[in-house]
């Protein structure tokens, strides 16, 4: 038995690495920023200056608020915090001029919000330390590092500018309450998550199902009726939380309709600018290839005269594909739901394990990974950033089971490389190339030999897509400016599909 005094407190294991993460985030402050920073700045100014009723109706700017109410409240809170330091930042008539201090203050709000991720990770690690005494100090600090030192998150949050770290933190808080069996708090945090970003609607069914399964197992009940009643209870509680969140908009039908059209814009087309590495990217590549072939084989058909536009990276095209059938939003949703189903089976099958704080975490995170991957692969108008969610779930899975390491390796590289086109600036791109090699360096030595060669090949390929192909295209094929990004996302899409298949298969073991 170890004496209590000898154990290093978890806090002093984690804090040094938090400083490392903070330091890298600070060094990223002067880096390239996208228009997303202007968008978020406008939202801050909007929520700071106008009453609630005008938040979703204001159309003076091109960047209308299209995040759910709680996120608007977050912006409101941050705006009031920021106004103490830099009043100029939150004035609606000053949006044209951006000073250096404005950028620093905006960036530091992201750094501040990212601290929640570190705290959520810390909570999880404290559970691990309590229940797995075999974990050494070094291992625990490594687990913490794997969470807070993620290049893909840095790229989206600290270079491109968004608040994904905070969203992931909320997801982790929810998972913490789940593993501790605190169902009310769990449902509350899921509701908060949905109210922060609408894409989290995809995890609502699985969350309700998971909490019902857990409570069902808790009471050792066996009848279908009690399961249904538990399910209705949690659903009602969830709906209650949700309606509290949108209360200021609930009493006005007109406002609610505006809110709905802002949050779920189906007219924006299947593909987002620069395709994310999902199923539709592979589908699109296939379409391109087939139409090219048809043009060569049948030079007089209608295809030869029509131009293929799917590779342009434009938003709002309803029918991007030329030869293959174009899916409607409802087909996409049906595919997402179909892809999710194995997670329900998995949860139901292992419901006895849901009471243990370690095993429940594994089952729950596996289910979440499936849901996130499914919604990312088949969803309508998915952004590249959505790949962060399955990636972070897989990181937690890797803490518990080394079988996931290979999958994480694939996904991390895809996640880092798919955001490459978002970020401009020569030095920034070189930094990202180092970051693409980073998962290789970290994970390589942990893998079995038979995976190593594939993984190495994968890394080289990704680097090739990112560095080599754009250069070749720029030099010799200037008309095909989007070709490299299409190839990159098509390749990444295949990898992601493969990982999805592997995850699905693992549930049937």
């Amino acid at each position, binding site marked *: 038995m170890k004496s209590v005094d000898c154990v290093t407190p978890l806090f002093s294991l984690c804090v040094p690495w938090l400083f*490392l993460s903070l330091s890298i985030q600070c060094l990223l402050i002067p880096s390239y920023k996208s228009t997303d920073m202007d968008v978020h700045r406008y939202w801050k100014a909007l929520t700071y200056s106008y009453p609630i009723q005008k938040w979703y109706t204001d159309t003076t700017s091109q960047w209308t608020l299209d995040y759910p109410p709680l996120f608007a409240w977050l912006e409101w809170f941050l705006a009031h915090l920021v106004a103490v330091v830099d009043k100029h930042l939150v004035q609606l008539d000053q949006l044209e001029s951006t000073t250096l201090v404005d950028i620093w203050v905006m960036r530091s709000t992201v750094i501040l919000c990212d601290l929640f991720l570190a705290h959520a990770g810390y909570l999880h690690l404290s559970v691990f330390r309590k229940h797995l005494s075999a974990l050494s100090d070094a291992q625990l600090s490594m687990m913490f590092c794997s969470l807070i030192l993620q290049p893909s998150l840095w790229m989206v949050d600290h270079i491109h500018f968004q608040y994904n770290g905070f969203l992931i933190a909320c997801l982790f808080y929810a998972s913490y309450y789940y593993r501790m069996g605190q169902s009310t708090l769990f449902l509350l945090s899921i509701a908060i998550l949905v109210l922060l970003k609408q894409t989290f609607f995809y995890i609502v069914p699985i969350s309700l199902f998971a909490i019902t399964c857990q409570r069902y197992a808790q009471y050792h009940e066996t009848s279908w009726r009690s399961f249904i009643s538990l399910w209705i209870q949690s659903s009602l509680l969830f709906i209650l939380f949700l309606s509290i969140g949108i209360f200021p908009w609930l009493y006005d039908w007109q406002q609610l309709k505006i809110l709905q059209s802002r949050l779920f814009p189906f007219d924006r087309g299947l593909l987002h600018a620069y395709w994310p590495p999902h199923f539709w990217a592979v589908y699109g590549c296939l379409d391109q290839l087939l139409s090219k072939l048809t043009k060569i084989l049948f030079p007089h058909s209608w295809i030869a005269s029509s131009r293929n536009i799917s590779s342009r990276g434009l938003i709002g095209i309803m029918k991007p594909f030329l030869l293959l059938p174009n899916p409607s939003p409802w087909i996409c949703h049906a595919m997402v739901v179909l892809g999710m189903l194995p997670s329900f089976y998995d949860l139901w099958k292992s419901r006895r394990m849901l009471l243990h704080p*370690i095993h429940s975490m594994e089952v729950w995170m596996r289910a979440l990974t499936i849901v996130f991957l499914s919604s990312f692969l088949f969803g309508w108008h998915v952004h590249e950033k959505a790949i962060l969610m399955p990636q972070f779930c897989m990181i937690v899975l890797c803490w518990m089971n*080394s079988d996931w390491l290979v999958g994480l390796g694939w996904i991390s590289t895809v996640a880092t490389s798919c955001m490459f086109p978002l970020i401009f600036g020569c030095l920034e791109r070189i930094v990202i190339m180092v970051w693409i090699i980073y998962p290789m360096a970290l994970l390589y030595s942990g893998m079995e030999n038979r995976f190593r060669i594939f993984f190495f090949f994968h890394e080289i390929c990704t680097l090739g897509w990112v560095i080599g192909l754009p250069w070749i295209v720029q030099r010799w094929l200037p008309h095909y400016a989007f070709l490299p990004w299409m190839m990159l996302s098509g390749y990444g899409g295949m990898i992601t599909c493969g990982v999805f298949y592997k995850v699905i298969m693992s549930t049937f073991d």
Partner: protein
Amino acid sequence: MVDKERSQAITRSCLDASYKQKLLLAFGFVVLIRLLVSLSPYSGQATPPLYGDLEAQRHWMEITVSLPPADWYRQTPDNDLQYWGIDYPPLSAYYSWVCGKTIEFFDRDVVKLHVSQGIETESSKCLLRLSVILSDVIFLLPACLQLCLKVSVNRNNEALWLFITTTVEPCLLLIDHGHFQYNGVSIALVLWSAISLLNYNFVWACLFYICSIHFKQTSLYFSLCFASYFFSRLKTQQRWKLKLLQCAIVTILLFVIIWWPWLKDWKSFSQALARIFPVSRGLYEDKVANFWCTLSPFVKMHRLLHSSTILLICSLLTTITCLPFVLMNWKQPTVTSLLVSFTSTSLCFYLFSYQVHEKQIILPVFISQFLSFDFPWLSFGFSMIGLTSMFPLFIRENLHPGYIGCCFLQIWLRSIMPRRNVNQFKCTFTKLLYFALFVVLHLLLLYAKPPIRFPHIFILMTTSACFVYFVSLLAFLIRISIELSNCKSD
């Protein structure tokens, strides 16, 4: 049931990595940090007509690539010495030529004569930044690794930690990769000469040291202790006279080779020398945390005395303060005494010598990082306060984010230090007081408006506080040197 076999997967990968893999990771990390610091704004960004140090270095490349060496230090129609004329020794100019040629290969416009003046494109910034990083990778990192392996007993984790600590030393990082200079090369040459001395390679030591002086004249700060260490090690050797002769021949040969383009007539040589040692430029530049700058509010030296008298006083004071370390080297030429003496003599030169810049604090601070295991608090405090002494410069160049980032990096490194003794990092009342004082000074520098009569009052306060720390550090180092030179073992 808890399945121990399956758990802790991600952690295993890093912990089981072999020494070589860890070394590779450390190298990658250090380069990554350099890249990240390079994202910061550089000295004189978008401030015509004179810009800053980045433009100076670029202009030197432009001059050296286009003009023959004889014209480099001379006022000609093509070389306006008023616009960032070269004032570094020839080896630095040669290095500018190498960098210029390399950059010319990628982008012709960056170093085109006359046309490129004040060029600020994406590719110019990127290429120049990468040239500093690349020269660090070639010169500085291998030298640091070599010396770290010499200093630390345990090959594995300690050496790697020391390697990272020394190479991401905040002062050098921010000046070289933020502000933009090539200090890493001259420091690397000094380190190589130190390593050669430790290996009893006297010829190589001379060679590297001469190269270092000819890269940047500030390497002369190490000359006194280098000489004493050199002779103290040489005297124990067999056939030391022959070795001394070899060294002398190599030194003279190297000198001739480096100066060859200017040796043809006396005038061009003296012109170059006058550019490299600008005695007329005054006692110090900007606000420096040294003796003379701290004295200046009370006594205006340049009004009281002639500049040649001041020069004499400076050299006398510097030599006297360096003496204990020279003696220590003569008595006990050990690894620790080498590092201590290199740190302290360069600190003495910074504090008392003539024509000092605020950036020259990086020399003692950088060498002191190798003492991190022997005197952890010294090297940590020295690097932080050395950084603070340059804070006014960083404010001017909008380097605040990099400054904070580097401070966090230091805190991280010190808190994961292997072989850590808790007592070494004990918080005393004096340390807390000093910390509070510096926090107040930072806030004053950032937010307070100075009174109109004394526009530099806060900067002077900061540099004076740093000066007090440096002097107490020097006193501590003198005590250590006396202890070390009296110790019998070894």
